[in-house]
């Protein structure tokens, strides 16, 4: 009933809103727009940065076919680069989250293997995060 009343008198609906309410609605809309912008658009990555422990191990171009063998805390992991994408193809960890994350191709995407302390981050023209650390 109440809702129907609102539909009948849209002006009444607007009158219920105070200045602060408008402020919050507008700020929320801007915030949501920004969230969509930052989380849903991404450029293709050019390079992949691999970290072992808290050190950057190396940065490779994605424009190549390559398998990188690394030695992490638990054992040997394999990272593959192919057709502008990168992924963990083998990891000694139990959960295998890093492997299941699959191919990464957009800038800012990361795959982190916490047990084995190896992570890879795709880099584009600009950096999305200042730093990532355990």
């Amino acid at each position, binding site marked *: 009933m*109440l*809702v129907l*009343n*609102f539909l009948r008198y849209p002006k009444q*609906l607007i009158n*219920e*809103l*105070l*200045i*602060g*309410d408008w*402020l*919050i*609605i507008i700020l*929320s*809309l801007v*915030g*949501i727009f920004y*969230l*969509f912008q930052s*989380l*849903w658009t991404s450029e293709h990555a050019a390079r992949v940065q691999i970290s072992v422990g808290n050190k950057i191990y190396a940065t490779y171009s994605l424009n190549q076919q390559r398998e990188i063998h690394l030695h992490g805390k638990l054992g040997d992991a394999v990272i593959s680069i192919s057709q502008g994408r990168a992924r963990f193809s083998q990891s000694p960890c139990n959960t295998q*989250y890093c492997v299941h*994350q699959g191919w990464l191709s957009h800038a800012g995407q*990361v795959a982190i293997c916490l047990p084995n302390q190896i992570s890879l981050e795709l880099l584009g023209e600009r950096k999305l995060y200042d730093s990532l650390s355990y």
Partner: protein
Amino acid sequence: MKPIQIQTTVDDHRIAKLAAFAIALHMVEAVIPSPLPGVKPGIANIVTLYVLYQYGYAAAAWVSILRVFASSLLLGQFLSPTFVLSLSGTIFSLGILWLAFKFPKKYFGPVSLSILAAFAHIAGQLMMVRLWLIPHAGVAYLVPIFALAALFFGLVNGLITSKLLANDGRKMVNNE
């Protein structure tokens, strides 16, 4: 042996009645299918907001928490992930309501509080999802959708609350 007697006050009875209203609305909502798990109108929050304005923060917190526990028992979700998400969302939104209720009432009405509470609810839930249920960065992709839904339903619930309060003659409760 002395029998245990619980003394109830008028306030207790009122909180119980209002919580029953909230539980009923929660049950109605549980039947409505949702396009995306987690996107729900949250109409029970209308009761929370209404109680906040009419009877103060403590009553609103009671009604809200009682609603979460009782509804989960009725739906058979007690102590399940659904219940934990519901509880964490509710605790977050009660936190923000406590803060927002101190805002000047001249500028910030029930709609503001409703929207902020909806955001807090979804923030609390998503945090729980990210930390416990789906420990994966991909959860971030869902944030804009949930935020948009929170804004929409927060606005609608806020308007309904504001209308209800206007109809009942708003008793301004001093939070001090």
